[in-house]
């Protein structure tokens, strides 16, 4: 085997990211406390450069590397670009927040970069082993990041819960994978795909493996009834970490579903479709109903995430290109909305004050009309009210289920979205109709203002002209 046959060149962005993450880890050791900004800037430059590398290497073909372990295709490229861009914004949001809490450390960014590497491997894997490695790399970074503020009891508790439940989920995944390996004799997803098509649903062993894998995927995405970790982790983590966990990893999770369920076990579509229907209905229902009872916005957004996951599953369960494109559109829209939502929470916070209670949003329109307006856009987008991107995302997934003659499911989905409307409107009510309790001035740096405004306005602009993003998603599966 020669080096050329490994086709390493297409993994250049990943290799670059790995090298830079290691380099930043080393450089950070030699920096004095007041120079910590260097690590931040280097991390951001790394993300930018990786973005450029992915962009430059984009291809419509399906290319394989490392003995068919690593795949580069349109899906992988597109998702990687979004992951990189979103984490870039997460880092912008994080700087002041971390500094105000004396945890502005290089390790945060290094862990973040390794997490990105894990996600990039997940979206590019055509082998279950690589998929698992990517997932574990990401998860371990996330566990550490959740506990980053180590003196905080809530954060430590959240990290512990996350770690234990995450480990169980990983175990489930490995168990499912090992059954698949036993039945097909290979870890290669394309080989497994052939087995599932031939064996089909009659093979009880395959269905058994499928159940384990679906359970694991539901754990990672936070679909009901495997969602228990999510609200606690979202609430307990430092808000910057929450904004990390809730955005890009969901995109990677979507990729994991595409690789495992659609590419690997497409032959069992009839089986996983019904499982996903149940998960989707439960997630939309439970997420939207319980969110109403929350008084903490991070927790509320956690339940809102659960309901959004339900909507994403609607697109996937359709089992055709229209549905996958819809689910991808929804995932990307969701990631942008949630990023903005937690961005506002970070904006509200200051040293010694988290600003994550719903009551903290009272009278935001008096204190900061501009960002109240941004939050208004985000909330209406999450509720799926036009003209925001959230509406088109809902339209796309509803269209996907109507397309496969499951109109009843579309009706159920809109019924739950009405319930969901209430708690999003409540935020708008607090911001616009109530008087402020907290009257401290809200301040943040130029970079954060710019990023937060761009983030929110993108939701509006994509709502007015969603065609570009939509055809991008369709193109991936076309």
């Amino acid at each position: 085997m020669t080096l050329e046959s490994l086709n390493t060149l297409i993994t250049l962005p990943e290799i670059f990211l790995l090298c830079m993450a290691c380099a930043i880890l080393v450089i950070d050791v030699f920096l004095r406390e007041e120079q910590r900004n260097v690590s931040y800037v280097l991390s951001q430059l790394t993300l930018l450069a990786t973005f450029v590398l992915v962009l430059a290497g984009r291809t419509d073909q399906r290319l394989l590397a490392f003995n068919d372990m690593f795949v580069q295709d349109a899906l992988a490229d597109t998702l990687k670009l979004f992951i990189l861009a979103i984490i870039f914004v997460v880092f912008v949001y994080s700087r002041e927040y971390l500094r105000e809490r004396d945890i502005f450390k290089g390790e945060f960014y290094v862990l973040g970069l390794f997490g990105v590497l894990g996600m990039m491997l997940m979206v590019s894997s055509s082998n279950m082993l690589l998929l698992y490695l990517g997932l574990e790399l990401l998860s371990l970074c996330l566990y550490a990041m959740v506990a980053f503020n180590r003196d905080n009891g809530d954060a430590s508790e959240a990290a512990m819960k996350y770690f234990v439940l995450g480990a169980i989920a990983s175990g489930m995944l490995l168990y499912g994978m090992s059954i698949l390996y036993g039945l097909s004799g290979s870890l290669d997803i394309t080989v497994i795909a052939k087995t599932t098509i031939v064996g089909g649903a009659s093979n009880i062993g395959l269905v058994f493996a499928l159940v384990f894998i679906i359970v694991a995927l539901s754990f990672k995405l936070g679909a009901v009834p495997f969602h228990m970790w999510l609200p606690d982790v979202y609430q307990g983590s430092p808000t910057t970490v929450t904004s990390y966990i809730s955005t890009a990893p969901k995109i990677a999770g979507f990729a994991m579903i595409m690789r495992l369920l659609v590419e690997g076990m497409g032959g069992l579509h009839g089986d996983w479709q019904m499982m996903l229907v149940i998960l989707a209905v439960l997630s939309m229902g439970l997420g939207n109903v319980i969110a109403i009872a929350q008084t903490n916005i991070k927790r509320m957004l956690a339940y809102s995430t659960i309901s959004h996951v339900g909507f994403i599953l609607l697109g996937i369960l359709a089992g055709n290109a229209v549905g996958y494109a819809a689910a991808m559109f929804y995932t990307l829209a969701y990631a942008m909305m949630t990023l903005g939502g937690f961005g506002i929470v970070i904006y509200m916070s200051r040293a010694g004050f988290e600003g994550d209670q719903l009551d903290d949003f009272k009278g935001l329109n008096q204190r900061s009309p501009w960002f109240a307006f941004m939050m208004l856009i985000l909330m209406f987008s999450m509720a799926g009210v036009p003209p925001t991107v959230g509406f088109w995302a809902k339209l796309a997934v509803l269209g996907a289920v109507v397309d496969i003659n499951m109109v009843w499911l579309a009706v159920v989905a809109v019924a739950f979205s009405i319930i969901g409307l209430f708690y999003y409107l409540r935020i708008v009510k607090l911001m616009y109709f109530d008087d402020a309790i907290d009257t401290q001035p809200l301040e943040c740096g130029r970079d954060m203002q710019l990023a937060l405004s761009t983030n929110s306005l993108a939701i509006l602009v994509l709502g007015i002209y969603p065609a570009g993003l939509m055809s991008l998603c369709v193109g991936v599966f076309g």
Partner: protein
Amino acid sequence: MFADWPLLSLTVWTPIIGGMAVLFSGDKSDTMGVRKLALVVSVITFILSIGLYTGFDASTANMQFVERAEWISTFKIFYHLGIDGISMPLIILTTFTTVLVILAGWEVIQKKVAQYMAAFLIMEGFMIGVFAALDSMLFYVFWEGMLIPMFLIIGVWGGERRVYATLKFFIYTFIGSVLMLVSLIYMYYQGGSFAILDMQNLKLGMTEQTLIFLSFLMAFAVKVPMWPVHTWLPDAHVEAPTGGSVILAAIMLKIGGYGFLRFSLPITPDASHSLDWLIILMSLVAVVYIGFVALVQKDMKKLVAYSSIAHMGFVTLGIFIVFQIWANPSNVNQAGAVLAVEGAMVQMVSHGFISGAMFLMIGVLYDRMHTRQIADYGGVVNTMPVFAAFAVFFSMSNTGLPGTSGFVGEFMVIIASFHANFWYAFLAATTLILGAAYTLWMVKRVFYGEVANENVRKLTDLNQREFFIMATLAVAVLVLGLWPAPLIDVMEASIQNLLHHVAISKL
């Protein structure tokens, strides 16, 4: 040279972009500048919409001023605008009312002026978009989008129970419209197009039609609002600021009626036919029962709100009575169907003027006295003679006095109802008695008699701005009442065409 302009797009987007400009200029410039800018934008929009009337060809039922551009190719959604004789009068009603609403908030609104003005302008653009959209998704975007400014208007500048009222308003309307969305998506996958005109020609079975009809009914009945889903309206009206009430009554309610004409009838003609009894029943209940409810109101705004529901009952009655007219065996020459729908349309436009005027009238009193309770007034005519003259005039037109626009629409619908069934006409005509009873009784208690208390004695009469608003509306009501022909001519061809389409079964 104006012929090449995308006039319809300009009418839709001028207020939206103008509203954005108002919003962003808010923090820096003085509030008077903001008010003037908002007024200029609304006047420009009104002038643009006049161009829609002058350039309109009333002899054809085809869509005019059509603009069509690809918007979202994945779903074959087009930016597709166009108007016919049904939508054009409503657009002009919208632009006209918005100018008055901006003026009405001139001095009263002191809190967050820029946001107030911007909300009304942006909402104006969305509402025009609803009437002009020929793609159902574009329609839906405007339809839902206009809820956002209204939500804020009631919630921020409203009365004491504003939060309750505005949440109720938003959730009611949202519940109604999401099922319509599912229906639209369903029809897209049946026919491969989101265009409203394609949906009108789409063949649908009876079960499908019935379900689609019911989902449309939920959306539009909430908007109209029809009994029994009307309960949000009195709350929203009472708590909304004057301008919000005016827009709600004058335009938003019309969007429900417009939806029946544009979606329900032509897309599901057979279901409309088989379920017409339901709509007629709901309409007559609105006319009779809500009329009695209005009679016992102690709050002026609530009274006018209930009277709006009763009057809108005429609109839905006029729209759906056509099936009964056709079915009536003794009505050999099928007369009256066109009259009924025209009556409904005239009633919509006329009610836009009259209810707007009624709410502005209450606004004038409220600005001075800060109470809407009828019991707090009495003898206002002694201190505000000019205002009382206008108030009596508008109240008379609200009861349907001949010579005012209120008479024309009601009369047409009642006459048309006779072609269907005597008892429909009889029940509908009770509104002339009930309407007179509740409106004139209110006038008597508020305006006549001795001066009730010191507050009334201190009242000052209309200022120039208020006089201008009242006079403009009075002229509109009179012109439409004495000479409704221009309005009827404009919509004649479109309504003929609509009924021709509806008469053909899709089965």
